[in-house]
């Protein structure tokens, strides 16, 4: 009896666009706003085909006025619309952070729950293609530190679709970070992880649940987005050496699925946290602290962290490659960790 698994392969960007299209069809209050989201289809393809399908009334190109249009999304959401608004690169957050942080994230709380803001703020993150200091960041912790936003960062086409649908249906503001390299765009380095099975029918992937991307018994590697794939590649190298790494894809930074992390460390007794964001005061710190609080006695070795070493992202290839974690660096860190205890 052969089980036939029909693979329907989509790139990350098409998975996102499909999710948005299905929700726009289902719910007339969903619409999209942002720079170049219309005819262009979004610089990173997140809105590909939507303009053709839904027209300029529901897929709205904006001026380069992030404060105004992200703020307008807040105002529209308070009226019961469900806007999806794009901040082209996360690096641009500084021109509109007040709207994101003092309003989008706080109004529900300040209103005692009487004003809901069902909106999705989607934004492209990540480097590795020499776009330098103002266009290559992930800034995961910058957003995860501030209460009031759900913050998700999916790493597969399947999750991109499922979590986008969840984000759109969520009654809270959700910051949806998608990684440029995982969009599967024709003008970026092609990588396998940017293409994957995506069912056609709408489905949701819960926000706040980590995913065990690979099981292992010797060490836990916690990562998100591009670093998950690097961790998986490192795990392959390590497996050949007899080291079985468990890889956790956080998927969601707020809420953070601490239980899955702690459970894994209880099993493996070693922890490496890998991050494409800056090292200090970042994801690696929060995950490490969680384990130091909740599973200290389970640790057979000190916790290790691998992230961008507190420098802006440099432009030149050798410099950028030096600061970004990659499979070799991850594998090396694990080897060192195994040697320590």
């Amino acid at each position, binding site marked *: 009896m052969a089980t036939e698994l029909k693979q329907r392969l989509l790139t990350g960007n098409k998975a996102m666009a499909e999710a948005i299209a299905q929700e726009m069809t289902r719910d007339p209050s969903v619409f999209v706003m942002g720079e170049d989201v219309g005819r262009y289809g979004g610089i990173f393809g997140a809105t590909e085909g939507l303009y053709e399908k839904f027209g300029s009334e529901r897929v709205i190109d904006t001026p380069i006025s992030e404060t105004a249009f992200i703020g307008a999304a807040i105002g529209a959401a*308070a009226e019961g619309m469900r806007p999806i608004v794009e901040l082209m690169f996360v690096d641009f957050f500084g021109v509109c952070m007040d709207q994101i942080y*003092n309003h989008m994230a706080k109004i529900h709380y300040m*209103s005692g729950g009487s004003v809901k803001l069902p909106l999705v703020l989607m934004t492209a993150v990540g480097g590795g293609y020499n776009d330098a200091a103002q266009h290559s960041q992930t800034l995961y912790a910058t957003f995860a530190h501030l209460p009031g936003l759900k913050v998700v960062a999916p790493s597969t086409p399947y999750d991109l679709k499922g979590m986008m649908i969840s984000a759109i249906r969520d009654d809270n503001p959700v910051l949806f970070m998608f990684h440029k390299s995982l969009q599967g765009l024709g003008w970026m380095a092609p990588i396998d992880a940017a293409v994957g099975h995506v069912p056609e029918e709408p489905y949701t992937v819960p926000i706040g649940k980590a995913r065990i991307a690979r099981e292992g018994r010797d060490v836990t590697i916690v990562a998100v987005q591009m670093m998950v794939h690097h961790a998986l590649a490192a795990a392959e190298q390590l497996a050949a050496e007899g080291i079985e790494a468990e890889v956790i894809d956080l998927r969601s930074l707020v809420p953070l699925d601490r239980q899955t992390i702690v459970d894994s460390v209880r099993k493996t007794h070693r922890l490496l946290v890998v991050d494409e964001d800056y090292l200090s005061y970042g994801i690696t710190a929060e995950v490490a602290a969680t384990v130091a609080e909740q599973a200290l006695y389970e640790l057979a070795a000190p916790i290790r962290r691998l992230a961008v070493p507190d420098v802006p992202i440099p432009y030149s290839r050798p410099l950028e490659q030096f600061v970004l974690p990659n499979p070799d660096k991850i594998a090396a860190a694990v080897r060192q960790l195994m040697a320590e205890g």
Partner: protein
Amino acid sequence: MSIPFEHLQWMYETMVKIRTYEERLVEAYAEGKYPVFNIGAGPVPGEMHLAAGQEPAAVGICVHLKPEDTVTAPHRPHHHAIAKGVDLRRMTAEIYGKATGLGKGKGGHMHLFDPATKFSCGGIIAAGMPHAAGAALASKMRGKDWVAVAFIGEGAANQGAFHETLNLAALWKLPLVVVIEDNRYGISVPKALSTAVERNDARAAAYGIPGYYVADNDVLEMYRVSREAVERARRGEGPSLIEIETYRYLGHFQGDPEVYRAKEEVPGLREKDPIRRLREHLLAQGVAEQDMAAWEARAKAAVDEAFAFARDSEYPAPEAALEDVFAASEV
């Protein structure tokens, strides 16, 4: 232009209600804060920005609004809230930090949210403008004739959000009216030290929209230009910008040493008090003193009741601080 009697009455009564409210808050705020002033003490702690003297800006335009119309206000929000019809009891309870408040005590005086009357405000300069534009956008997308009014101070007209929002609203022909209350100062900084033009209606040209200027805190003139602007917005013809010269009788916030203005400035302003001027107008129109006294009494009663409600309400349970970060969501 003739103004319907019920509009005149409503504006007068509402101005009295606002003034009474603000004066009552002066007292309530002072409670427990002396002899040594301490901003965090007393039944109404935190910053307190009052609008006594600025009533015309709020009532002159809100008289033209429907419940479905949206109003966003800045850090000095009571006159707008009252003019928009926000429940005075729950608003006052919020200012007292009580569980019965609009935000269950989480928001406070600068963060009043009332979905029932589509009113909101916030403590960040000019940040409410995009929210109003978003409400206007929602109205337009749904084919409604609802308008949105964003109030800001003259100091806020130099913040980036001002420019971005007006461009967006003009471009998309959104039903938005922006009202700038020029009360001469942004905290201590006089307009001449903050603003490169004398009057902000000049800035309407940067967006190809109508700009109006109302001199001397004139509520009847405010009524007139607001009617034009609101009607234009309702007709789907896009936004307008109104600047009104107005007066701030009190400090920027309660406790402000007011080192930046001459001692005689406020008494001079009070001589031109807009409530008294409207009262004189009504008298000249033949309205009876005793009718006005009845309106005044009704306004005061509403204020009394609101303060009593607020005082009598309970504080929220401390652990309630952990609630309401996120709405429960089925996904």
